[in-house]
């Protein structure tokens, strides 16, 4: 918990070199890995008849298509379940929450083997058509390369977190062909501060990803859209309304994702069988509604074309995609929520447009801007990154007018979902693991530090039989004003002071009290130290001195300040 002492860190020139080398190496590795990931998934999609372009070429054998639709996701899910069960020490897919946790608390990532298995199962999940996203696993894959830098002793403070962020930024920059969005995503979601020390290498890594994706592999922009501009001023009001509605849908989606895990666990006791069951559900739905299979690149494009879907069709597809995505993630398929969020959002946008222009009779500037606005608004509510989403629109569509329109939908969506649900799905998942970022980074950091770390056994305790005169002398010797009275079983009975005699303790901490709680509860407390007891049984463990709590807090503030303001 100590601030990184200046004496231990390397000279600025060395630090600069280490940071640049880290950014270049991690950025390049993450970028190549992201490209390989995408290519593998698309090869599997073609081989397993998940991609429409592959399915249509076997159209003269309808039984083969039906069989593949049912079996591929089911067997894929079974494979995912078994791989997690038998090869992964963590036994679950890893994703952005694990990355955020590692960077925020300066911890190592979960073990590399689990990370690799998680990447493998993500490729399998996406390749066999599960309704999950590809960007979450890619973020983790990028982070995995950054995490490897932790092994290097470099003398650069905060290097591990910066390296992980570099990997994340490069993966996003490559996957979306969007270097600015990659850079902002790493800061907005993972680092959550903008120190130059981190900003510079993350930018370099993001640019590296861009160079590799764009110059070496010449990948086109993902979502080119032609849009001449918003035709009517009042449409910005519609974009805001759309943002609010999309946020409500996104909240429903996130609640369902969170609820599905326990629900599936209650239904199927064997964890390895759960993804297979979810896969079967996807396959059965896909027989009638092939759009739900996989990432849905085609469906995403259709949402921007007027009249591609009927209104009834849209409603069914939106509901099916929400339920199946929640089911797949809850059942343990390895994959993210971002791509499904894009798809669901764009379909909601298309539905909103159809209602506004068709039923409402309002003149609009076409479906594309509504689909894209809603797509990013939904995704932004889910990943809690409005800036990233606005920039992704810009870099994906290369269209300024559409970006401005989407921006309005994104902020209104974020406003509502942050107020009613939380900053993001990741943050709520982390909060459920006891890491609550809703009141800021510093609160979250202090909340995971137990006061028991600061316990001192120097405090004076007295048993039931100790005579008061002797106690007064011991207190005077040690320079304490209070002693803690224990009963025969070692439980705290009260506080003894020479002036007031024995009184009940005014403030007691339990063994699970965090530093953040302690700071709040100590407001108005007078005394040397606060006794700490076990929550069960009330056994006395020791006491924490008020001064120790304050210095721990000061150390923490200093460290955070240093991290957030470091220039190099």
């Amino acid at each position, binding site marked *: 918990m100590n601030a990184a002492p200046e004496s231990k860190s390397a000279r600025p020139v060395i630090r600069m070199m280490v940071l640049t080398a880290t950014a270049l190496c991690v950025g390049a590795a993450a970028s190549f890995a992201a490209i390989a990931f995408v290519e593998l998934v698309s090869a599997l999609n073609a081989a397993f008849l998940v991609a429409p372009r592959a399915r249509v070429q076997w159209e003269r054998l309808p039984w083969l298509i039906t069989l593949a639709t049912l079996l591929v996701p089911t067997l894929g899910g079974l494979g995912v379940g078994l791989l997690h069960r038998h090869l992964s020490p963590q036994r679950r897919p890893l994703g952005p929450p694990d990355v955020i946790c590692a960077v925020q608390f300066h911890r190592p990532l979960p073990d590399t083997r689990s990370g690799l298995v998680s990447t493998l199962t993500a490729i399998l999940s996406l390749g066999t058509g599960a309704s999950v996203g590809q960007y979450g696993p890619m973020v983790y894959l990028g982070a995995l390369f950054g995490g490897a830098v932790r092994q290097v002793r470099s003398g650069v403070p905060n290097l591990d977190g910066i390296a992980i962020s570099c990997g994340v930024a490069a993966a996003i920059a490559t996957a979306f062909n969007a270097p600015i969005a990659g850079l902002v995503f790493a800061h907005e979601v993972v680092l959550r501060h903008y120190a130059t020390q981190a900003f510079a290498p993350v930018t370099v890594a993001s640019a590296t990803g861009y160079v590799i994706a764009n110059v070496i592999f010449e990948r086109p922009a993902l979502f080119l859209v032609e849009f001449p501009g918003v035709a009517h001023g009042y449409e910005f009001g519609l974009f805001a309304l759309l943002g609010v509605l999309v946020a409500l849908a996104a909240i429903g989606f996130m609640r369902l994702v969170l609820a599905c895990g326990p629900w599936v666990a209650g239904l199927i006791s064997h964890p390895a069988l759960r993804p297979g069951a979810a896969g079967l559900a996807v396959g059965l739905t896909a027989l009638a509604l092939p759009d739900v299979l996989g990432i849905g*690149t085609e469906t995403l494009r259709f949402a921007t*074309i007027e*009249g591609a879907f009927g209104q009834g069709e849209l409603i069914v597809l939106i509901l099916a995609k929400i339920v199946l995505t929640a089911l797949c993630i809850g059942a343990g398929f390895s994959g993210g929520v971002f791509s499904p969020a894009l798809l669901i959002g764009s379909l909601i946008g298309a539905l909103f447009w159809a209602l506004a222009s068709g039923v409402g009779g309002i003149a609009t500037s076409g479906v594309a801007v509504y689909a894209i606005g809603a797509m990013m608004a939904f995704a932004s509510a889910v990943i809690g990154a409005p800036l990233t989403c606005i920039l992704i629109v810009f870099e994906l569509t290369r269209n300024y007018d559409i970006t401005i329109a989407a921006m309005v939908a994104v902020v209104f969506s974020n406003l509502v979902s942050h107020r009613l649900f939380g900053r993001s799905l990741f943050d709520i998942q982390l909060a459920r693991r006891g890491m609550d970022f809703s009141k800021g980074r510093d609160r979250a950091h202090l909340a995971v530090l137990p006061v028991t770390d600061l316990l001192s056994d120097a405090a004076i305790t007295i048993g039931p039989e100790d005579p008061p005169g002797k106690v007064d002398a011991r207190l005077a010797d040690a320079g304490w004003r209070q002693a803690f009275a224990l009963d025969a079983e070692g439980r705290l009975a009260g506080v003894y002071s020479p002036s007031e005699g024995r009184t009940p303790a005014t403030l007691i901490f339990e063994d699970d009290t965090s530093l953040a709680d302690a700071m709040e509860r100590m407001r108005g407390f007078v005394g040397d130290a606060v006794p700490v007891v076990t929550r069960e049984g009330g056994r006395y463990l020791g006491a924490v001195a008020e001064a120790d709590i304050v210095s721990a807090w000061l150390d923490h503030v200093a460290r955070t300040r240093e991290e957030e303001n470091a220039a190099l």
Partner: protein
Amino acid sequence: MPRFSLVLLALLLGAPLGAQDLAVATWGGAYEAAQRKSIFTPYTEATGQAVTAVQYDGTVAALRARAGHEGWDVIDMLSDQARVACAEGLLLPLDAQALARGPDAMEDFSPHAATRCAMPQNVYARVLAYDERAFPGVKPTRIEGFFDTARFPGKRAVQRGPDGILEWALLAEGVPPEQVYGLLSTDRGLRLAFRKLDSIRDDIVWWNDPAEPAHMLAERRAVMAEGFNGRFFDMAARGAAPVDIVWDGRIIGTEVWAIPATTDRAQAARDFLSFALRPSSMARFSELIPYGPTRRSAFAQIGLNPATGVPMRVHLPNAPQHGGRALIRDSAWNANTRDLRQRRFEAWLKQDE
């Protein structure tokens, strides 16, 4: 000297030994004339081997029915037809490395890859052309204009079949070229494409023979036409009609050389192929007719048309200087979805009545 005597021998013996000529099945017309001048004659001069051209309609059915008893040795095909024929065992497998000469040669062919039985030989494009006389003011510059009868009124000449027009329909809906085949692979995509086709239903004049669309423009039977770039070039170059090509939305297809499995002169056929696949042969061919070479190195050798003096590079569909959208024809996809598209196309035609 030996070359000269061989030619002499061929000239002397050519007529009586007609059966020993290498029979090349190809398309006829200006296309065959260009092949004769740029490839067949130089080949005969170089080797003494006479070449006879046989015309056919480009279908696998014709290959199946005629190749054996007419003694075809080499065949010029569309790449997707070659794919089907190869799968049926109608063509001999080829060793691309040996035919193209040298390990770097494969790189030179990119992005037109050799397949198991076929070597890419030239590149053509299905393009939009219009009659300059019909649009003295604003002229169509994009594929969207083909479906916009309000801005560009008049008849449209379209091939009576599902090739090309469905791709255009989606391009006109704003779908980027990379996604066109993915979207056309779904039922929804086909429905959208036919919906777009509905918007010009009353303005379509159909054609079946690739020579027709250029004539339809010249004779003012249509103001815009879907057709092959060579035919339109020909019409304009002869000064017959002011026909202009819109390169946006061009669908680039590949023409290939292959060897029918029924030939009894496989080695002679392979010799011919390796001559035809030289960059210099390709460049000579592209100078005569605006079909692009499949080897990048051939571009540097393309100059003026020997008869008209027209610089030919700008008229080639894959000329590096063209802007706009270009769709590379996916021949595997085209071959495997032909039945489905034909079925849907006929169903759409019937809605008319």
